[in-house]
């Protein structure tokens, strides 16, 4: 994906889209966690360790969902501030063109206040955008941190799966794989978001 030429408001919208995808995967992860819990109960005492891990998987999924929602809000706010800034820039360009064309007009100074006010609005919008962008980057970093924990969870789940009976081991291994795959997919969307913002 090459976002280098995208306008800032497009980038923020892309991040919102990526985070939406990540959230969908996290929702599936909550179902995986619920299935894991049921399976660990069925597998009995040998799967006690796995049972404890299911709680962590569920917490991780909910964390990702909560932060994704927050990041999505930040991305939308950022996109809105940025697109409003772009519209304001267009107005400033048009004012400048009008000024150039009306240098000898008797009332040319009458729109200078509007021009100055619009410049102030632009500065304010750019400040808003930078603030939202910073928040966005911070929250993306937080999800990335949580996901590092997901890989540890998947590995531990695989280890725990080896301790249960053959009958349940395969299902628990599948769950561990699902956690790993979900974490990789979410990670991919987060990295895309970070790359997009950095480009």
């Amino acid at each position: 994906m090459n976002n280098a030429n995208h306008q800032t408001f497009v980038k923020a919208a892309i991040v919102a889209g990526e985070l939406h995808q990540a959230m969908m995967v996290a929702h599936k992860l909550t179902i995986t966690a619920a299935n894991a819990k049921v399976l660990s109960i069925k597998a009995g005492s040998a799967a006690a360790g796995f049972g404890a891990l299911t709680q962590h998987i569920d917490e991780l999924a909910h964390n990702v969902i909560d932060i994704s929602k927050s990041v999505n809000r930040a991305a939308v706010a950022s996109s809105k501030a940025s697109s409003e800034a772009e519209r304001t820039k267009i107005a400033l360009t048009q004012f400048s063109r009008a000024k150039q064309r009306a240098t000898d007009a008797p009332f040319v100074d009458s729109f200078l206040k509007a021009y100055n006010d619009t410049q102030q609005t632009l500065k304010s919008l750019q400040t808003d955008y930078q603030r939202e962008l910073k928040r966005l980057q911070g929250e993306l970093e937080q999800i990335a941190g949580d996901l590092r924990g997901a890989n540890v969870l998947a590995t531990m789940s695989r280890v725990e799966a080896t301790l249960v009976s053959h009958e349940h081991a395969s299902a628990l291994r599948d769950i561990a794989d699902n956690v790993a795959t979900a974490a990789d997919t979410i990670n991919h969307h987060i990295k895309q978001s970070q790359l997009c913002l950095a480009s």
Partner: protein
Amino acid sequence: MLTREIFNSNSHRWFVFGRDPEKPNKIIDTNQYMVATANNALLMDPGGIELFAAMLASVVREVPVDQITHLFASHQDPDIISSLGLWDKALPNATLHAPWLWEGFIRHFGMQQISYSAIDDDGGQLEIDGVTLQFIPAHYLHASGNHHVYDPEAKILMSGDVGAALDHDEAPLEINDFDEHVKKMTYFHQRWMPSNKAKNEWIERVSQLEIEQMCPQHGRIFKGDQVKRFLDWFSDLDVGIVGNP
């Protein structure tokens, strides 16, 4: 952009703006109108985004921008009012008068400072510094919610798309040869005007008005006898026809 004063009295002046030589290609040429009273001004069908800078530059040759306290949009088309979002940044205290039907649509062009005054289907009037202007219903000519502006003192009817002609960009503002001009109007009216019933009702309505100048949003201004000739021609024309230009 060409600016022409088309009426001047003690109470107010009418201006037409158009024929901008720097207009980008492939966008239809438009006429914008302004009534300037003692302390205020009404800008009618102020035009599209592409014309904003030229319009603002032309307007401040005649009045200070903060005197533009009223805007009018005959309907919702982009060549009529897509510049609204830019005027919104230039006019902190203006009111836009436009058909009630289009409020939710026109606001898409961007309106944070300008307020919307919805015109009823039956029309209405606006008084500015003692000058009374009437909003004349022109529904389905061509938009389903559509008004024109009539000035009984100046005897001017700003007729939106009615009387419009597809002319070349440097065309004069006056009609020199009515019969020749008809060729430039026929397709426009047949294709863009959807209803013979609406057309006939409008003709009936404006025939009651004393009109010395009929000012369309595209093409040229009708003066004197040309107004009646137009109404007769329009009355005979079948509209709502898809055909080749």
